[in-house]
């Protein structure tokens, strides 16, 4: 009994001293890049045992909120912070793009197994509730050969607030003036129609089991779950399948990010660009008082923008265009 107690105490002591000597960093935010973030943080810890980064995938809105409240060392988001959000944080946060992703429209229409083609106008109409049936002439115009049924369209969308919803509504606001004036772009909006489901898995599950339904999920999620999704018409009038190449093409062709590395790349020009593409960001405070933490975070960022980028494709993310990665590296020096 006594021996086990002593052993236990020794183990506890070892645990505490171990924790004290390691640099522990906490972050929270977007769920979409969470798989690659977890891999990065684990790999980085394996190579630099002194640094332990904990990441909680609680969603983009939650990441911004916790950063603003100062409960985490860094945040992560699929939506760049607005000027008012930036102003609300005590220490100005810096945006570090990490990888690229896409949002796809997944559907379940008996008789149309693959190859559905949609234009931005039609997608906006479906999610506005103005296009109600699958055999609507507007959908038929894009899909002359498809055998579209005379059935009500079941629209499925996110019920929780989400970076994915932001990318999707941002796109709809750019392609449809009606959407922009009536609904707008945000992580959560007042949806004119549709069934709300929590999380990408909720949307995917509802679409899979409901005939004649359509919903939006992240490209990575759709690819992993082998879901069918529609080709989208881009700004140059071409129908493009969502792939990691077409997402990267959109990033390369878009007018790019502003000097703070914020900005949207939806509806990018270029024949190969997939129109529903986005960057995702780490939000790092521009001043870090703790010298140890500052050193650990800046070194991690350097690694992430160089060696870390090579892991992206293995995990089905699109890496940053080389030019962007280089520009972002210069921003590390701004962390004081």
């Amino acid at each position, binding site marked *: 009994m006594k021996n086990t107690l002593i052993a236990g105490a020794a183990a506890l002591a070892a645990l505490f001293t171990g924790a004290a000597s390691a640099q522990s960093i906490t972050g929270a935010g977007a769920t979409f890049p969470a798989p690659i973030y977890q891999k990065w943080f684990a790999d980085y810890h394996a190579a630099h045992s002194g640094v332990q980064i904990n990441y909680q995938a*609680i*969603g*983009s*809105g*939650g990441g*911004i*909120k916790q950063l*603003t409240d100062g409960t985490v060392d860094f945040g992560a988001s699929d939506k760049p912070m607005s000027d008012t*959000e930036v102003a609300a944080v005590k220490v100005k946060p810096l945006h570090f793009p990490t990888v690229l992703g896409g949002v796809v429209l997944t559907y379940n229409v008996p008789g149309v197994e693959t190859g559905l083609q949609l234009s931005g106008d039609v997608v906006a109409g479906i999610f506005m509730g103005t296009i109600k049936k699958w055999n609507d002439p507007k959908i038929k115009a894009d899909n002359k050969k498809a055998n579209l049924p005379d059935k*009500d369209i*079941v629209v499925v969308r996110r*019920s*929780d*607030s*989400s970076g994915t919803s932001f990318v999707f509504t941002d796109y709809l606001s750019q392609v449809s003036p009606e959407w922009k004036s009536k*609904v*707008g*772009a*945000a*992580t*959560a*909006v*007042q*949806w004119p*129609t*549709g*069934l*709300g*489901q*929590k999380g990408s898995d909720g949307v995917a*599950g*509802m679409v899979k*089991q*409901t005939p004649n339904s359509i919903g939006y999920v992240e490209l990575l999620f759709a690819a992993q779950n082998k879901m069918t999704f529609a080709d989208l018409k881009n700004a140059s009038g071409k129908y493009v399948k969502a792939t990691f190449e077409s997402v990267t093409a959109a990033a390369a062709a878009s007018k790019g990010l502003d000097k703070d590395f914020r900005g949207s790349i939806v509806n990018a020009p270029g024949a190969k660009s997939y129109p529903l593409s986005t960057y995702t960001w780490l939000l790092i405070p521009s001043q870090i008082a703790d010298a140890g933490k500052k050193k650990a975070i800046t070194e991690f960022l350097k690694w992430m923008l160089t060696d870390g980028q090579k892991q992206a494709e293995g995990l089905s993310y699109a890496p940053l265009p080389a030019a962007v990665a280089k520009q972002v590296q210069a921003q590390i020096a701004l962390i004081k």
Partner: protein
Amino acid sequence: MATHTAAARPIRKKRLIGGDELAKAFTLFFAVLILVVTGTLVYQLWITSSPAKEKFGFGFLASTLWNPVTDEYGALPFIYGTVLTAFLALVISVPLGVGAAIYLSELALPKVSNALTFLVELLAAVPSVIFGLLAIFTLVPAMRDYVQPALQKVFGFSPLFGGPIFGVGYLTAGIILAVMTFPFIISVSREALMAVPREQREAALALGATKWESTWQIVVPFARLGILGSVFLGLARALGETMAVTMVIGNDPAIHASLLSPGYTIAAVIANEFAEASGKMYPSALVELGLVLFALTMLINGLAQLMIVLTTKKGAAKG
């Protein structure tokens, strides 16, 4: 007399210090703790929701807007969904639950009754997310493919059963809530029926009543307080249920006339949106919804108490 109390006093004092006093202090502490928890809850809800209360006032209760983009919020679609689904649940589960309780306590063989009661109590212990999964994989497809088309065919003339068919919606949520509330109704009603003294039944039978007459006219009225209690317990669960409802109600913050349409409840919207609600007004509006749910539950429970008091008086006058 005087000597007697003088002798008794020291002994009593000793005993109080030794055990009773301590026990009293302890239990008082626990009782006060309940008050403190409830008080803190209300205080927190009140304080955290104050930005929304200041901005929207009582209009919050009547507005159907729920727009995080323009930061305008209203509670009406959620209140409607919460009350409607709870009502549908009770409409289904009260006859089923009370009927089953009568069978279990009065008519079934003891062996059958015990086995079934065990199963019912097991059902009451199943976590709600499991009911939600059950609903998604069995109830929703069944509703979509068979029940709702049939309802629409027969009652399609009424707006209550109009509109497109989704499988999810108010009615589906009401049914899954009924499944979740009736274990409580059966269990508590059965206890109440079993507690009716044997003499009541014997007297009725001796006067020539059939078994059913004795059950329906003597035993059930005798146990009605307990049965009402079970109904309100079920109602409380239906009003506050979160997980299973959010999985099948369709989460659409609007008021639809059709029972087949998607809707939203207060508990479901808080569960869905609170974690990622950013800014000042959005979380505050969600907390105010929590306050509304709290008030709604209090109101309904108050009405229930009132109803019990009234029916008891009537019963006493009759007796």
